[in-house]
């Protein structure tokens, strides 16, 4: 008969609840290929949540405090996993939000299971899993409502049932059901033990393991659990199922169709498809058609390239002539070709593939182009290229090999967005960008050096299979590092990396996604298929406009455009005859709107710049975060402890005062403990009421319903009489005739302790953590009675 659970019991229940939830969360494995991405962090979080809950409950914290602490810890864990720091504010918060946004994008774009080469949905699963961990712990352990916690576990199972084709694993289901039954058993047993001794002839301890009543109850509980579990397993096939699609995960027939709704296309997945699905057929007067652009990724978030926010005007329709390409000088020789495209039924893209640059595009449906990127986007949600015919007139530009049309872009020539590089990139990206382009005398030469580095001098290798997944900071670092796993990738990574590095050295850049090279069909028609999907960077130069570069090595793209293969005569910075300062600033000066470091001596500058060094630990930020975390912790602790401290202070003050003050303390104690304080009664009457609520102070293991009354604590009853007598002396005896007796404060303490021993555990806890007397003044009816008497 215990009011407060033993620590071992508390820990056991918490551990079973957390373990059961974690096992249930294994049902989400169907969402992604690499399940350790979310199950791993969830193990640690489950341990922390369960441990914190067990300790706090054992210490007797109120439910609010327990849950708050668990939430804070869980948020810190999630933040640490997704954002790299325990406090989800500032850069860490941004990182967490970015991870979640990408995960949401992946969830909406790809069909489960999500492949490892695209942004993982693990962050979403992690957040959802932590949520369920907290909910189950709260229901099963804090509130002790295990059956309700079963609903939460059921919800865990219902998520994959609605979204994936595969149901939860059988073993996982059995394990979770067993855990749930164990929780039910422990909870029911605890409840039974609190009901007290049963009526009947049982001798000795009635609740020993051999007691037939307990056994019968256990067997009964087990039967109910087994029947319920069996029903849960067997009934669903006979119940009509409603299709749900919470996250808009891809439909089931996506294995054959190529879907491009978000241009951050799953190139790798499509390239890896065993079958080479025909997507676009076209006829053209171009004798050697090549690149066909689908969409442009203009925004680099530090993790991903994306198409950003597009604003398309009403007049930007694909119904004919297009404006001249941005920045393209009329001096550049150009040849016009016409193309008549026809998409197959397998090609569902909300982006319209077009040549770049193009002079006119005509397509059925409401396709609009973006002035900055000149790519075409379907306005209606249901408009795709599936079975669509459209015509394009494109330019073939001849830039020559002299570089005469490539002038460094001036500040403001293009949107700032094309130069933005977020902080937090691995230092190797910046260092490499600057190192590779050292000696270049113009942006054009820098671009040539970059491409050459990727295609030849850098030792890169094209491989779809060995490429590390993703394009984020870590992926960049791996990709650019000259190590065993490094410098291997496929077109998306080459394009992304060159785009970022070009921006770092001050060249406006973006990534284009499209098709690389069509196959001739023999009758003058050409065809792009799924294996032709490709990505490449486009860099901006005054006079040349947005120019395609080709960093992907010859393993994939045999030859780069002629204008990008011009050898560069490096301006050796160590040669004293050269004046690097006359050249470098002219290129760097135009590229400062972002936090890009464009210096030719990156190492030195990075070393000098204490706060900007990417490869060192930013101790100030760390200290700030730690300080902020401690501040939040102190605030939470302060808020939790403040009522207790105020109450204690008030008690000390009252007990040191007159008998009236001591009486007020008793009144406040009664208020805290929800003991009725009869209004307008004499001290003796009140004392009699209070004596009826005295509990046994010597009973360390507080029963569920403590025995109360004067017999429960005779010493406290006597103390109460003395306190009442002292108050009567103070109130009703001739003023100044007597002094309050000594030891009254001790008597009051005994009374308060005994009153506290007479209430249930939950009431005592509430009185300790949230004493009502701190913010509620005990009713005093003096004024009211004065009026009564005077009336």
């Amino acid at each position: 008969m215990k009011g407060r659970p033993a620590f071992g019991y508390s820990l056991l229940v918490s551990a079973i609840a957390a373990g059961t939830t974690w096992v249930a969360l294994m049902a989400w494995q169907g969402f992604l290929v690499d399940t350790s991405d979310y199950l791993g962090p969830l193990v640690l979080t489950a341990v922390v949540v369960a441990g914190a809950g067990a300790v706090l409950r054992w210490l007797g914290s109120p439910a609010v405090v327990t849950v708050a602490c668990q939430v804070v810890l869980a948020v810190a864990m999630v933040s640490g996993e997704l954002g790299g720091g325990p406090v989800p504010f500032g850069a860490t918060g941004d990182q967490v939000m970015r991870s979640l946004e990408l995960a949401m994008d992946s969830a909406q774009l790809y069909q489960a299971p999500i492949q490892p080469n695209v942004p993982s949905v693990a962050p979403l699963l992690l957040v959802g899993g932590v949520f369920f961990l907290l909910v189950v712990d709260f229901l099963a352990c804090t509130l002790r409502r295990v059956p309700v916690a079963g609903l939460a576990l059921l919800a865990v199972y219902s998520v994959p049932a609605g979204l994936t084709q595969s149901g939860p694993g059988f073993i996982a289901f059995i394990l979770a059901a067993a855990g749930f039954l164990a929780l039910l058993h422990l909870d029911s047993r605890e409840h039974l033990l609190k009901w007290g001794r049963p009526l009947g002839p049982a001798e000795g301890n009635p609740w020993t393991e051999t007691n037939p009543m307990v056994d019968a109850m256990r067997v009964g509980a087990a039967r109910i659990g087994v029947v319920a579990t069996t029903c849960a397993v067997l009934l669903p096939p006979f119940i009509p199922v409603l299709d749900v699609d919470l996250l808009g995960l891809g439909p089931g027939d996506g294995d054959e169709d190529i879907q491009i709704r978000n241009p951050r296309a799953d190139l790798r997945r499509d390239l890896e498809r065993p079958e080479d699905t025909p997507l676009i057929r076209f006829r053209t007067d171009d004798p050697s058609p090549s690149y066909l652009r689908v969409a442009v990724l203009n925004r680099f978030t530090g993790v991903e390239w994306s198409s950003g926010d597009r604003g398309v005007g009403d007049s930007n329709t694909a119904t004919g002539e297009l404006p001249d390409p941005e920045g393209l000088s009329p001096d550049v020789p150009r040849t016009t070709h016409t193309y008549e495209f026809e998409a197959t039924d397998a090609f569902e893209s909300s982006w319209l593939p077009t040549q770049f640059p193009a002079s006119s595009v005509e397509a059925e449906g409401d396709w609009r182009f973006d002035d900055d990127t000149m790519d075409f986007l379907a306005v209606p949600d249901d408009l795709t290229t599936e079975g669509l015919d459209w015509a394009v007139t494109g330019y073939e530009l001849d830039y020559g090999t002299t570089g005469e049309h490539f002038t460094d872009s001036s500040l403001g020539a293009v949107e700032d967005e094309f130069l933005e590089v977020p902080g937090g990139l691995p230092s190797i990206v910046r260092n490499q960008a600057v190192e590779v382009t050292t000696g270049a005398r113009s942006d054009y030469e820098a671009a040539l050096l970059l491409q050459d580095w990727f295609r030849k001098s850098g030792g890169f290798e094209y491989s779809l299979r060995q490429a590390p997944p993703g394009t984020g900071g870590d992926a960049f670092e791996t990709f650019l590092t000259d190590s065993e796993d490094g410098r291997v990738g496929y077109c998306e990574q080459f394009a992304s990396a060159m785009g970022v590095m070009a921006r770092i050295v001050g060249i406006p850049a973006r990534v284009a996604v499209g098709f690389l090279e069509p196959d001739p069909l023999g009758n003058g028609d050409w065809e792009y298929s799924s294996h032709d999907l490709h990505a490449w960077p486009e860099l901006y130069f005054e006079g040349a406009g947005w120019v395609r570069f080709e960093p992907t090595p010859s393993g994939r793209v045999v030859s780069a455009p002629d204008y990008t293969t011009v050898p560069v005569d490096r301006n050796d910075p160590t040669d004293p005859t050269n004046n690097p300062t006359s050249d470098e600033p002219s290129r760097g000066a135009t590229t400062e709107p972002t936090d890009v470091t464009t210096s030719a001596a990156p190492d030195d500058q990075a070393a000098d710049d204490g706060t900007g060094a990417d490869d060192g630990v930013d101790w100030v930020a760390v200290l700030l975060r730690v300080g902020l975390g401690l501040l939040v912790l102190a605030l939470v602790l302060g808020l939790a402890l403040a009522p207790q401290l105020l109450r204690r202070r008030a008690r000390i003050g009252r007990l040191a005062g007159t008998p009236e003050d001591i009486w007020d303390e008793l009144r406040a104690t009664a208020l805290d403990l929800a003991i009725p304080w009869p209004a307008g009664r004499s001290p003796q009457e009140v004392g009699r009421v209070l004596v009826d609520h005295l509990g046994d102070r010597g009973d360390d293991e507080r029963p569920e319903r403590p025995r109360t009354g004067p017999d429960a604590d005779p010493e406290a009853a006597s103390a109460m009489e003395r306190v009442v007598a002292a108050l009567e002396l103070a109130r009703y005896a001739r003023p100044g005739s007597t002094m309050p007796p000594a030891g009254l404060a001790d008597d009051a303490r005994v009374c308060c302790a005994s009153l506290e021993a007479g209430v249930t555990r939950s009431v005592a806890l509430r009185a300790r953590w949230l004493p009502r007397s701190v913010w509620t003044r005990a009713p005093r009816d003096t004024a009211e009675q004065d009026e009564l008497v005077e009336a």
Partner: protein
Amino acid sequence: MESPTTDQQPPHPTGADVATVARVASRIRANVERVIEGKSEVVSAALVVLLAEGHLLLEDVPGVGKTMLSKALARSIDSTVRRIQFTPDLLPSDVTGVSVYNQQSREFEFRPGGVFANIVIGDEINRASPKTQSALLECMEEQQVTVDNVTYHLEPPFMVIATQNPVEMEGTYALPEAQRDRFMARVSIGYPVPAAEIAMLNSHTALNPLDDLEPVTDGAELRKLCAIVGQVHVSEAVQRYAVSLTAATREHPELLLGASPRATLHLVRAAKAYAALHQRDYVLPDDVRSLVQPILSHRLLPSAEAAVSGRGTNAILEGITAQVPVPEIRS
């Protein structure tokens, strides 16, 4: 008229003084309880009235020991005791006394009536005519008798212990309200419990137990005790409480007649005696509350509705004491 009891408090009674009161009172109680067994609360009420210098009305059916109680109380005090048996033909002059012409001295000389004693036992007072009953009025309130324009003072202590049968008994006249108001308290003795009745059989059948009863105090000491009781402190809070209680009876919808100011006075005086009996030199609200029924109930006149619904004055007073709050005035 009596003066207020608070603001003109004489010097404080010491602890020894109130202890004396309690000691003497316990002696009287023990003496009386030799005769009346198992009725300690009735004896306590009688003692309170005795020490508060009031008059006691014992109301009950015949044969429960009303007269025995009054006689025992009277005999416990070494003072003059007279018993007046009220009958329908009793004249007022039998109570107060009469002036008789002395032919030898050729003067009228006063022959004192039954009221001239320290303790007057008015047995079956409601059997006398209202005229005779009212003869007691002046004596009880002013402790003096006026006959033929001559006023005779009654020597303190002066206490009337009247017994009466319930009014519905045959051959009784209801006491007028004015006379009821002059009694400080009315108590009912009630039937004894079986054990007490058996004990009574043993002690009362052989000989009269009153014969063995010896006085345990005298009139002089009783006067001192009454003076000590008069000095017991009544705080403002308790005064307010007493006033609130009596005021509540006047506004109560189930009462035609509430308690008079004299009732308030009697209530406080009785509370002082009660406090002294408990060795306290100050009165508690609880003292007042515990005396509300014996002090107030005989003065109240329930409404017809209350009478029909069976709610007596005691039940109404219980409701009033439960509702009227105790003032909380900090010293």
